[in-house]
């Protein structure tokens, strides 16, 4: 809201466009439209392919602007029949929700704490910052999880990546921008730290916290690698992306062509999988979009 206003004021400056300026703008707009086009073209192709006819899809090997052949939902009905896809969906939802809640809570605690000035905060902020630069690496992290007995449990996916030093630094900056007078007033009214954090600071730093939440959601929704090393024997716990990765191999073109007679409807399955796994996150992102304005990086306020 605030940003839009300032833009309006800024356009108060009147400049008469010259010919060169108009040419530039036209070229600029065409270029930008081209970029936007390239960005969504592959996604459009996938969506069109997912509702194509299997055989027509196999024979046409160009970009699809409209579905190849007759519109068919054969692929969707085939995927709906795959039980592991729905299991994966369920697990991904569990991971996304729990990891985001935990991540936002930890980020809020860290940010709130570091926004206060005590002797300990500096020491602890260095401790947290160090983790940004130096980490144990793949194998040591794996061994810690194994020692803790977290391998092949959902916690191996939920806990380790839920927050990081960058999120906490972002939250810290946001909490520092909360006017001290409000916090003082609350303290005088007998408000403790926990209550202050949840009921006063958090609502005032909501934008940044939403950005953190969004990052957690997107990260978890799209993650497959941790599951592939931490959940090796617990296939029931696999998130959607890992299930997809495997199914993509099963239904790759060369694999389909191996089995005779060739079932051409199977060519559509890959695309259907992409569509059903991607659409939810694409629908969710406009919801977060109004908080993008609050996005700051590494504590730098724009």
């Amino acid at each position, binding site marked *: 809201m605030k940003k839009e206003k300032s833009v309006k004021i800024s356009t108060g400056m009147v400049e008469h466009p010259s010919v060169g300026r108009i040419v530039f703008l036209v070229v600029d707009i065409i270029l930008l439209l081209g970029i936007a086009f*390239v960005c969504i073209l592959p996604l459009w192709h996938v969506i069109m392919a997912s509702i194509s006819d299997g055989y027509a899809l196999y024979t046409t090997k160009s970009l699809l602007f409209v579905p190849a052949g007759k519109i068919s939902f054969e692929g969707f009905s085939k995927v709906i029949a795959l039980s592991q896809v729905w299991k994966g969906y369920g697990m991904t939802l569990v991971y996304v929700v729990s990891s985001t809640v935990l991540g936002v809570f930890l980020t809020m605690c860290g940010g709130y704490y570091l926004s*206060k000035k005590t002797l300990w905060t500096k020491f602890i902020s260095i401790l947290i910052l160090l983790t940004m630069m130096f980490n144990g690496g793949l*194998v*040591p992290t794996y061994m810690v999880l194994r020692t803790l007995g977290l391998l092949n449990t959902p916690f191996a996916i939920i806990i380790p990546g839920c927050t990081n030093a960058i999120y906490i630094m972002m939250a810290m900056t946001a909490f520092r921008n909360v006017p001290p007078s409000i916090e003082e007033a609350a303290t005088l009214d007998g408000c403790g730290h926990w209550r202050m954090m949840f009921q006063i600071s958090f609502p005032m730093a909501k934008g940044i916290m939403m950005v953190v939440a969004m990052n957690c959601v997107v990260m978890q929704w799209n993650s497959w690698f941790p599951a592939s090393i931490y959940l090796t024997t617990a296939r029931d716990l696999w998130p959607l*992306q890992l299930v997809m990765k495997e199914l993509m191999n099963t239904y790759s073109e060369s694999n389909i062509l191996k089995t005779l007679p060739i079932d051409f409807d199977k060519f559509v399955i890959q695309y259907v999988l992409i569509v059903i796994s991607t659409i939810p*996150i694409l629908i969710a992102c406009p919801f977060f979009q109004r908080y993008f304005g609050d996005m700051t990086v590494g504590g730098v306020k*724009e």
Partner: protein
Amino acid sequence: MEEKVLAGERTESIPPKEKKPKKENKFIKDFKQNWRLHIIILPVLAFFIIFSYFPMIGIITAFLDYRPTRGIFKSEWVGFKYFGQIFSDAQFALVFRNTCVMACLNLFFGLVIPVIFALLLSEVKIKWLNRPIQICSYLPNFVAAVVVCNIVINFLATNGVVTNIFVAFGAERENILSDPKYFWGINTVVNLWQGMGYAAIVFTAAIQNVNQDLHEAAVLDGANRWQRMWHITLPGILPMIVTMLVLKTGLMFSTGFDNILLLYMPSTYETADVISTYTYRMSLGGGNQYGFSAAVGLFQSVISTVLLVLSNWLSGKLAKTSLF
């Protein structure tokens, strides 16, 4: 212009402790005074100690002949054997070269193109055009790596969409992805497609926040658009660019791992294999050389740290902006 508020800067305003002996008392006194506040950090501290600091203990496996069945304490101590092995390993030299090349390509294009895009976008003041373009540009960021790479694999297959275009221009028909000489380019383009719009968001916001009075003053002084962009907009968003540069430099060796792991294949190892994929293959990916892999991981960590500190120091010197 609004001064940039930096993460670390304010913490440094704590008055330094003058005398050493008093230090401990101060800390204890502070703890007693603010223990209610300090309780809040406990879960966070526990998180970082368990998932960031405990693994650092595991780095010790880089000096051990680690066998999972024996555990850390019963494994044999081999000292710097693995580090010697790293530097004499011909494959590691290739891996290291690939890591550097791809990280630099990603760093350069991943920073320059979003800035250019944001500048171009900010010139168009038509809202109904501006918004949809921006939304389209950052949508790919939300698409999972598995999906993106699958699309890439399909497009670049022997009879894929992109291959067909190349063949139309006279190239030989082949699976482009299996040809090592194209891998760097493919990886850069894929990363750019995924991240360009999202990276541009912060720059667009920064451009909007540049003080408009400066532009008006410059117009009155007869500056043209180009001069204004060069002398007002760019310096205005420089702190943001520098911050992103420092952040990306620190992370340059550890990001992009997912894509490579999904896109490479044995025939492209010579150009596609990077430190993180190499470590993975050597250890959990089936190689079982845990000690060697931990040594490589440590090597990578040290380089990342040095790069981060160095770029932070440089940006502090050159642009008067540092991250911490």
